[in-house]
């Protein structure tokens, strides 16, 4: 099966070997698989279940608990806008409106070219530097509509 490349599988085996209980490696292993496949389709869950000696349902019901695991493909850039209390006080509504207008999509949607997915997220731990968002794993703080434009326009 070519779902998970040999190199990634090697890394996964290393991760599993560290833990005293095999199932503990489930979240880290899912992360590696999601990074390589882009998301977690049924085949990926089955592969992980097989690897860890779990059932498909063990894996699927765990995956569904965690918001950062995605069962559907996302855009190349996943823009995650925090709208929780500190960002609300810092003016995230303006950032949200600007992003929706600029990209022409709402929360939970992906642009037709597959470049951007826009999501609303709960507190990302950037409260003292609000309003904030993450693009994939990168943090962007002290946002203004102009700063958002600059950040998005500079993406390769």
């Amino acid at each position, binding site marked *: 099966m070519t779902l998970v490349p040999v190199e990634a599988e090697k890394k996964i085996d290393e991760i599993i070997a560290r833990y005293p209980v095999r199932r*503990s490696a489930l*979240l880290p292993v899912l992360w590696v698989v999601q990074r390589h496949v882009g998301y977690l389709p049924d085949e990926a869950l089955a592969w992980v279940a097989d690897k860890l000696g779990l059932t498909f349902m063990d894996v699927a*019901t765990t995956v569904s*608990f965690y918001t*950062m*695991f995605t069962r559907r493909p996302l855009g190349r850039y996943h823009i995650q806008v925090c709208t929780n*209390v500190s960002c609300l006080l810092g003016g995230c509504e303006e950032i949200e409106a600007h992003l929706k207008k600029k990209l022409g999509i709402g929360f939970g949607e992906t642009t037709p070219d597959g470049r951007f997915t826009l999501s609303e997220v709960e507190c990302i731990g950037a409260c003292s530097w609000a309003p904030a968002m993450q693009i994939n*794993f990168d943090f962007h703080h002290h946002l203004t509509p102009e700063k958002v434009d600059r950040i998005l326009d500079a993406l390769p």
Partner: protein
Amino acid sequence: MEKPKVLSARFDLPDSHRLEVYRRTGGYRALEKALREMTPEDVIEEVKKSALRGRGGAGFSTGLKWSFVPKDSGKPTYVICNADESEPGTCKDRLIMEKDPHAMIEGILIAAYAIGAHLAFIYIRGEYWYLKEIVEGAVEEARAGGYVGANILGSGFDCDIIVHPGAGAYICGEETALMESLEGKRAYPRIKPPFPAVVGLYGCPTIINNVETLASVPPIILNGGDWFRRLGTEKSGGTRLFAVSGHVERPGVYELPMGYPMKAMIYEDCGGIRQGRCLKAVIPGGSSAPILTAEEAEACTLDFESLAALRSMLGSGAIIIMDETTDLVKVVYRIARFYAHESCGWCVPCREGTRWMVKILERLLSGRGRTRDLDLLYDLARNIFGTTHCPLGDAAAWAVYPAIEKFRADFEKYVTQPTVALTTVPAG
């Protein structure tokens, strides 16, 4: 009042996350001292003396927590560092992991020595991926330096550290939910007792402490528990990182001694309320802490006792400041939505109650509210409080009913003057 830098002393040094800088500035001397000169019991006694209380939210005595680990269970013991920082308003552990990860690692190793653990975990929320990489780098540096792994500093003590990523779930900050997550499952909190010190990870005795709590341990061991306690108050020792957000001129993370006046923090350290406006309210300990009026906030001090006396809490040390222009109904609604989203769904009062609170607040915000909705919302919150499986339900209730008690006019406005209502309410 003096403002000693204990936790943030290295934050401004170049390459402060590197082992070399850490060692040059006194790093790993506390571990060496503990391993060579102290018994595990001595370490626990020193931490008890320091009046160090958990920086994650609950504020429980760290030394006491460590002393609950049974010595003769015949099972392995574990240390977990809770780096799942997710409480809205809180962004201070992020700085420790980014700027001074070795302080946390040294604290973990000392804790492991104190309770006889040979394996420790650092559970980092998935959103903090860049920190996971920094922390993993620091663990590898520490391993190469002989501080992590077998026979640490030739003492015969072994301890390994695994850095473990979360994947987006606020409830994982609750200690037993975190353990379920670390075991590779849905993060449903466990019933307590038994407490983790007796039955924790894999059913074994486990100590779980917040990042900042553990980073406070090396200076305690090095300078003594009495020194640390005297930095703060008798019952809340030491300094603390306060994450200030909202309507001040200079939001940021400030290290201040416990017992520091909130008024001085707002008006001196943070430059006062933005644009010369007036203070309206403060949420003092992350979104879970009951709201304070301006008068209460300006009169209190930053320690566990002072806020407990106001029937609020210092929680995670996240101070959310709101000026006179703030619409508190909107703030409460946003926080209520957060708890409804993050409820794990395991128990009924939390799963149903948090969603009902959101619906009532939506009704108010959309101008369809009735006067009796205020009482309904209040009673609902009171009925969630104390009836749930874990503290998430209490937190959700605390975010709502004290706001109605203290700022009822803000809520009534939406019933009596429907024109103030939003025309559209964002989708939950």
